[in-house]
């Protein structure tokens, strides 16, 4: 079979599989960036011993456990605590002084995956004396990732990198103050979790659920096609209080987005934006 034909069939199979997932399980990956998705689906084929996406589709429709497994392939993101320390440093130096003026603070970590960023923000806010009046909503579409995030357990061999990032992010305390090491794992302090609410939420299909002062959504939008990016950014705009803050990943920007006109650059090099007044 010519290569072009094979490639076209693979594209058709991918679209059909995503349709099937949407209709049966109501997870909508149809507007995700297809190139990344394709790589993940190809590695899932090996895992589920399928030759083609059509075969995988058959199993996904008829065996819910296969879908649950596939969801891990499609959604789990592994991040580091304080990934891109300069982002957290900019939050600390530029955004925290304004958050400090509110009697109570709400933060939304959209697409929190296994929670690295949620704990990073909680520690930062604790160091700045704001955690006691803060509630962090941490949302994701993957229930397994949410459960892991809620437990706050990470592999010990990742902690050295987390610690270095934390220091570079202007950390005022020792990261080890916030966790207990148990064998090859570390468990983060329950007191941090009292300020977190974990919840299932899809940027593709759900709507706004709260009014918040800061949204941190990093390296999530890069998995979306532009229309879905615009939808998510529209939700963020609606969820933010007057002059609220939005932080994106270091290579994400509002530049190619329909929402660009509704935000001001705040700390552009760290991709922190501020909702414009008057809307």
């Amino acid at each position, binding site marked *: 079979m010519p290569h072009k034909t094979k*490639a076209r069939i693979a594209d058709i199979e991918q679209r059909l599989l995503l349709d099937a997932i949407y209709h049966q399980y109501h997870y909508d990956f149809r507007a995700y960036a297809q*190139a990344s998705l394709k790589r993940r689906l190809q590695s899932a084929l090996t895992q589920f011993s399928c030759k083609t996406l059509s075969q995988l589709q058959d199993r996904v429709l008829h065996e819910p456990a296969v879908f649950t497994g596939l969801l891990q392939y499609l959604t789990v993101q592994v991040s580091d605590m304080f990934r891109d320390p300069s982002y957290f440093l900019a939050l600390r130096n530029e955004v925290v002084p304004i958050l400090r003026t509110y009697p109570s603070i709400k933060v939304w970590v959209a697409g929190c995956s296994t929670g690295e960023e949620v704990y990073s923000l909680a520690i930062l806010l604790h160091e700045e004396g704001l955690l006691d009046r803060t509630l962090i909503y941490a949302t994701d579409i993957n229930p397994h990732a949410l459960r892991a995030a809620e437990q706050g357990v990470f592999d010990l061999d990742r902690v050295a990198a987390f610690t270095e990032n934390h220091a570079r992010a202007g950390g005022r305390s020792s990261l080890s103050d916030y966790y207990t090491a148990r064998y090859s794992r570390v468990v983060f302090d329950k007191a941090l979790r009292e300020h977190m609410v974990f919840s299932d939420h899809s940027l593709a299909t759900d709507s706004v659920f709260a009014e918040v002062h800061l949204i941190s959504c990093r390296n999530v939008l*890069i998995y979306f096609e532009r229309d879905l990016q615009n939808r998510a950014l529209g939700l963020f705009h609606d969820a933010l209080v007057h002059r609220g803050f939005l932080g994106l990943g270091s*290579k994400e920007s509002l530049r190619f987005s329909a929402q660009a006109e509704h935000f001001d650059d705040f700390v552009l090099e760290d991709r922190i934006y501020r909702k414009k007044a008057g809307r």
Partner: protein
Amino acid sequence: MNASAAHASNTPAGGPYQAIVIGGSSGAIDVLNVLLPRLPVGLRAAVIVVLHLPRDRRSLLVDIFRPRCALPVQEAEDQQPIQAGHLYFAPPDYHLLIDSGPRLALSVDAPLHFSRPSIDVLFESAADGYGDKLVGVLLSGANDDGAAGLAAIHAAGGYTIVQDPASASMPTMPEAALARFPRQTPGKTPSNTPGKTPAPHVLTPEAIAARFVQLHAQRLL
């Protein structure tokens, strides 16, 4: 003339190439310094480069190459439409992919061959997106990232070039790519077996630069 005629016989009938993807690791920056400044204004293809870099530092590639290149040079941004005659570098700590449009897309999926960006990730998605309208170039490096990607470009009918391992300061990467193909003599244009596209062209940095110029003159780049 001879080389050009021999080359033309290897050109798929598909017409001009829309993109050149280049991958390299240790030892590749010197090669890029030979290749990129010689790319002519008016190039019909976009040029997209993955170089393995330290993850936790800002890349200096744009600063280094912008003043030396005739083409506009930038670091790839997510969802950016790919423009002909522009040169894009993958940012450190992100995979770079080609998505429909064609647009550039980034991901933070797990490193591949301990590398993010990974050359395989760029090459395989580019092979999907561009098919036989793609030139793939694999340079010096100390691991085997890029070998599977170059094979994917080849399988899609693209034009493949591997830096002559003898000219590479780290020959592992070009050798790993060539190990997937029948043996051939460096500098010699591979023979075309009926029904099968030729194996990669094995060229020195100077010869790769000359090949780009030649393909441009033939209105293929």
